[in-house]
């Protein structure tokens, strides 16, 4: 008994011998399903051939998906790593700033403490506590404001006194050494250590060296 379905290939491709071909034609005439199978054979073969294209495309698709995932994951990982790195840098900078601020505050506190414990303000034997100072010279006015702890006004008058000193036409009863000594005290009270030291160095007054030593100790912090 011939299974004609097994011979569809050869039938379609014209490879059957004459006797089998006759039998096949006879069977086709009687069997509607066999006839339909022969009609659909070329489509089925075409689909079979296309299975290769599908297989290749599926592989390419899987590679595309892999690449997309890797790109996505890679990008997410890069962003994550960037975020972590940024956070670490941010924390480091913050720590440095806080540390610097703490040390700076600590240093200032220590300097202030030392200054408060060792500093002795100058004594002015001719101090004028009266509000009637208009007729006084600039140097006296400066010392007056100094005694009131108004260092900015004191400095204005001391600067004016310095100009008076350099003016040959003006006669004054204070020396450069005295003036610089007092200016040094203004700066030391303003915690402007370098300027204070500079003026004390220019002064020959007794006590200048002590203040220079104090400033140097303060600056050691």
């Amino acid at each position: 008994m011939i299974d004609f379905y097994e011979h569809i290939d050869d039938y379609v491709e014209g490879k059957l011998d004459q006797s089998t071909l006759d039998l096949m034609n006879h069977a086709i005439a009687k069997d509607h399903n066999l006839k339909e199978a022969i009609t659909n054979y070329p489509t089925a073969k075409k689909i079979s051939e296309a299975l290769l294209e599908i297989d290749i495309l599926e592989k390419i698709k899987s590679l595309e998906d892999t690449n997309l995932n890797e790109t996505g994951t890679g990008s997410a990982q890069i962003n994550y790593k960037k975020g972590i790195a940024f956070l670490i840098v941010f924390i480091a900078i913050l720590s440095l700033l806080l540390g610097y601020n703490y040390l700076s505050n600590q240093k200032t506190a220590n300097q202030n403490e030392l200054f408060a414990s060792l500093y002795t303000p100058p004594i002015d034997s001719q101090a004028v506590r009266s509000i009637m100072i208009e007729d006084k010279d600039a140097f006296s006015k400066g010392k007056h404001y100094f005694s009131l702890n108004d260092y900015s006004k004191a400095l204005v008058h001391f600067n004016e006194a310095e100009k008076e000193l350099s003016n040959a036409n003006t006669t004054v009863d204070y020396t450069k050494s005295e003036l610089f000594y007092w200016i040094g005290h203004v700066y030391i009270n303003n915690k402007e250590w370098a300027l204070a030291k500079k003026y004390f160095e220019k002064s020959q007054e007794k006590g200048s060296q002590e203040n220079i030593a104090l400033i140097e100790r303060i600056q050691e912090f």
Partner: protein
Amino acid sequence: MQLSKNTAEVLNKIRSGKVGRDEVITSLYNDQNLKSKVYNQVLKRGGNINDAQSVFNLCLVQFFKTVTKNRSLTIDINLEAYIIAIAKNVWFQELRKNAKTMTTEINDNLDVSEENNSESLLLNIEKMDLLSDLLSKLKRRCKDVLMYWANGYSMEEIAQMCDYKSAMMARKKKYQCMKELIEYVSKNPHIRSAIS
């Protein structure tokens, strides 16, 4: 694997079965040099990046199909040049199909397809969608046997590639699978009109 490697070796690997074929597909797909050259062909001829991606994929399919189906085919020119020629051809066909342009440049390059003798593709995305139900029903072994048989492999080769004891067993499997497929087509006449 580099394209400069022995071309015959690459072709043999493609023809050796799924493992070898997939290995070469992976290698070519990830070859950035080849990809950029194919992309350039498309971009400099009016295509966009999506067109370039599509052409790259299709030219790979066409290349693998050509090599698999024509097992006596030898490629004398540089493999990269061969694939780029296919890509140009694919893009020109696409341009013609979309009637975007019909320039002399396309006509001048008509010889590309003759030069590389590449197999034209049977399917497009729409047709593939049409087959998705069938593909989900056909078993892997059926797909493999029918695929190799329809692409010119002998029963002896199919038996070896698909781990059947003999060519007779492979033939029997092919017969069963083909019968199943024909029945499916009979029950779904719209597929016949779409594929034919």
